[in-house]
């Protein structure tokens, strides 16, 4: 078995084991028998008498949360992989063009205006898209500059501007009521995932993923300098726009329901690259598998280690850093 196949096999195995574990544990006690019985009833139409609330917990609370962790983790990792390839820079995260900061500003505004959860999520999604659209519009209309550099710089300054908008709203928010809600949103959490959110997020994430998969071969060419890529017959400008739109769609959808979860979009692509090398077509699926498995592991810990929720942002770095350093030390593959 080749090294790449081994990496895929390992990641898939880990993911399956984690999904089984994530369904089996949680704050609400569900016995293994009931878990198997509930799935049997659901999938095979078997009859199995369940204790009160168990079905709700498995299919409406825990299940959606497991799926959300998988989708959000995969989406962030995919967006990070695409950005790092396209910007030819390993320090790039999906927030480079301001999608997460824009989404955060949208969500904070929603909380500030005391809107309901659905509206807050819609604000976040719209904020993420609007921020990147603004950055792209400004960055691409600056003449006589390296287009990538113009985009990155515009992303940084607009991101800072949006950040100060968030700071202002935090400052003006009611300190007893709204400020804690804002703080919790910015820390990120999958706790308030609702089954009805899930369909929309999955659909948007898939809509973002499809062009990346279809263009996976050309994505490698984006890593070349623009003139070389163009010499090979690629319209870099258009390709770049498509990739940015796709990555933004995925990230905005994910962040709208999860809040800010850092680290995954930055580090998971590196981990995947260490395992399988830089070919985008092979790299993307592995990064998504690793991202999904990693966020699921983190979120399962978040919801089980204490009676209160632990913010995933705290655990991603605590768990991820040693894992990444080990991988870094053990690997011989280059970027």
């Amino acid at each position, binding site marked *: 078995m080749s090294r790449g196949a081994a990496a895929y096999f390992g990641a898939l195995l880990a993911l399956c084991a984690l999904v089984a574990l994530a369904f089996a544990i*949680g*704050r*609400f*006690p569900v016995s293994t028998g009931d878990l198997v019985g509930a799935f049997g009833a659901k999938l095979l139409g078997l009859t199995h008498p369940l204790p*009160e*609330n168990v079905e*709700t*917990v498995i299919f*409406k*609370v*825990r299940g959606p*949360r497991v799926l959300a962790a998988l989708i959000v983790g995969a989406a962030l990792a995919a967006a990070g992989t695409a950005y790092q390839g396209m910007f030819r820079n390993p320090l790039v995260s999906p927030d480079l063009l301001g999608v997460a900061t824009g989404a955060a500003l949208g969500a904070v505004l929603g*909380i500030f205006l*005391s*809107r*309901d*959860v659905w509206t*807050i999520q819609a604000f976040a999604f719209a904020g993420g898209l609007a921020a990147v659209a603004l950055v792209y519009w400004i960055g691409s209309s600056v003449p006589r500059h390296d287009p990538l550099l113009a985009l990155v710089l515009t992303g940084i300054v607009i991101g800072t501007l949006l950040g100060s908008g968030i700071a202002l709203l*935090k*400052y*003006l928010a*009611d*300190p*007893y*009521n709204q*400020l*804690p*809600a804002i703080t*919790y949103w910015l820390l990120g*959490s999958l*706790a*308030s995932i*609702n*089954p009805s959110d899930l369909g929309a997020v999955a659909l948007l994430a898939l809509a973002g993923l499809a062009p990346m998969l279809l263009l996976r071969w050309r994505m490698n060419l984006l890593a070349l300098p623009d003139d070389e890529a163009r010499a090979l017959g690629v319209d870099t400008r258009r390709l770049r726009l498509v990739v940015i739109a796709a990555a933004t769609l995925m990230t905005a959808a994910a962040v709208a329901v999860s809040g800010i979860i850092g680290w995954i979009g930055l580090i998971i692509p590196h981990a995947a690259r260490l395992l399988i090398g830089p070919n985008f077509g092979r790299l993307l699926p592995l990064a998504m598998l690793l991202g999904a498995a990693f966020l699921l592991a983190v979120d399962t810990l978040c*919801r089980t280690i*204490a*009676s*209160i*929720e632990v*913010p995933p942002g705290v655990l991603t770095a605590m768990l991820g850093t040693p894992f990444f350093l080990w991988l870094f030390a053990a690997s011989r593959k280059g970027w």
Partner: protein
Amino acid sequence: MREAFILVGVLCSLAGIAQAKPVTDGAGRQVSIPVKVERVYAAGPPASMLVFAIAPDKLIGWTRAFRPDEAAFIAPKYGALPELGRLTGRGNTANVEVLLRERTDLVVDAGSTAETYVSLANRVQQQTGIPYLLLDGRLDAVPDSLRVLGKALGEEERGSMLAEYVENALRDIKGRVSRTRPEERPRVYYGRGPAGLQTGLAGSINVELLEYLGARNVAAETKGGLANVSLEQVLAWNPEVILTTDPNFYAAVWKDERWQNVAAVRAKRVHLAPHLPFGWFDFPPGANRILGLYWAGLLLYPGAFPADLRPRIVEFHRLFYHQAPTAAQLEALLGEPGVLPK
């Protein structure tokens, strides 16, 4: 000639200092306060409320301007006082210069008396030369705070009168709670935030009311302040009563099927705390919560608390807000969906 005027001015202000009276505040600090206090800045909403209750004409402004629905409960001349921002631990929006510009005689804050707030009080006092009174904001300390503040404001009688009112109310509430049997005390979940998944842990000021009423807060197994919890955890706790301060959550809880099997939802015991002109349950954590105690007491122990809250509300508003609510306002307060059982 001019020098003489200045000399007289200096002598007068020296005389003012000489006439200062010492007051011990809620943190045990000795604060020397001028005999005549006319202009008082309250550093946060709980303090505003106390100063407003004792001496409304000495309050120079609010930390945040009233929204129209809140202002309706306050006499227009007080409701229209300027917005000065807050000057307390939770993010300042006021500038210390404002205190000087407004010729403030006294700064009052009420809330935590922890080291952070003591040092903040000392710093502002040193920097501005304006005496800074720090009062204890816990429910049990409200009578003492009213007395100390009454003395500082030169309104000892009114301070004592309000303190006695609060003492009687608290004693009455404790008596009613102590006459309930332990097994009658429901298991309560306090849900904050738009999704209802933030709650107050044991010892947090946010659930002081629940603890005061002897209710069993389901989240009390952990000590701390506010925290996020998972829906699964709430289902595992399966609370018998849910109290919330968030109208969005109150509306969602009846529609979201995941909440339908929770005991409190089944028994239709999910309730929304009134919030006008100041919140009844949680924020701001001030004397306004006295009404919340009667409200929550009625919901938790239906037989043990007076079923008609109206006389209590009218009396409290008259004493603390200087204006009894109109019949329509009472209806608006108590008739909002979720405030009282149907």
